[in-house]
């Protein structure tokens, strides 16, 4: 059974992909989704009662569908806008997740999403202590989310 933080991370990601990306996430990841190649990665730093990074790795050819869904267009926008769309998804997940963990009275400041296509050197970066991670099945791919905490501030 996942701990509370992991459950919140999964639920927040599912709701965001559903409501913002108009995708149908699944808890189970099938063989095709598991074998999908990396397509993009986003890291988003935050500070507040605790500081850290939310990391989202996207696998499979999902960026065009995600961006065109968000924009209500049949054709996918240019890659830069596709990456921007994924950055906004990560921003919404993080903005909803942190108060759900820390309490609605707490204030967090989010940084700018750093988005990179494909594999990124940031894969090897030290993001701090891993507090929660989850996987969401999405069409022909998946999203892996990891919540890292670097510093905890006593409030």
């Amino acid at each position, binding site marked *: 059974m996942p701990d509370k933080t992991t459950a919140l991370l999964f639920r927040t990601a599912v*709701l*965001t992909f559903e409501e913002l990306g108009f995708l149908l996430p699944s808890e189970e990841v099938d063989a095709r989704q598991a074998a999908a190649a990396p397509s993009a990665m986003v890291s988003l730093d935050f500070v507040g009662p605790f500081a850290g990074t939310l990391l989202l790795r996207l696998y499979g050819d999902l960026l065009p569908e995600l961006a065109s869904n968000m*924009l209500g267009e049949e054709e996918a926008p240019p890659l830069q806008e596709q990456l921007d769309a994924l950055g906004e998804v990560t921003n919404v997940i993080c*903005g909803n997740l942190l108060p759900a963990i820390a309490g609605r009275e707490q*204030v*967090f400041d*989010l940084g700018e999403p750093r988005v990179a296509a494909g594999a990124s050197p940031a894969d090897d970066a030290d993001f701090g202590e891993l507090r929660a991670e989850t996987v969401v099945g999405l069409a022909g791919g998946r999203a892996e989310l990891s919540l890292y905490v670097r510093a905890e501030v006593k409030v």
Partner: protein
Amino acid sequence: MSLNVLIVDDSSVMRTMIKKTLKLSGLPVGEIFEAENGAVALERLDEHWMDLALVDINMPVMNGIDLIEEIRRRPAIADLVIMVVSTESSETRIEALRNMGVDFVHKPFTPEMIKQKIENLTGVCADAGQDDSPAVPDSGPDF
């Protein structure tokens, strides 16, 4: 009467989503301006009359909180109707925003949420009919 709207968000995709929502809402929207941060938003406000600003919180260069504080300090635009469209979930910060005379829509939003909030804030209804004239008060802004 049509509303000139300023959309302030560092995500171009989000700005496009909000713009489409406005156009589909049936609200009498005039010109729509965009800014990717608070500093650019202030330039747009210097250049054009706005009836409504839809503002994100977390942005580089100048964030939404600093932008709103600056707007409220400037007599010519201090009364601008502002709606924050953000992932912000902190009740502390939302209450602080409301104390600055700002309403709030949470991301992810539905088009209906945006439409209803704008109707409530501006008193302009979706069925008000299209009119090209911006909603500038008769007396004009007090520059």
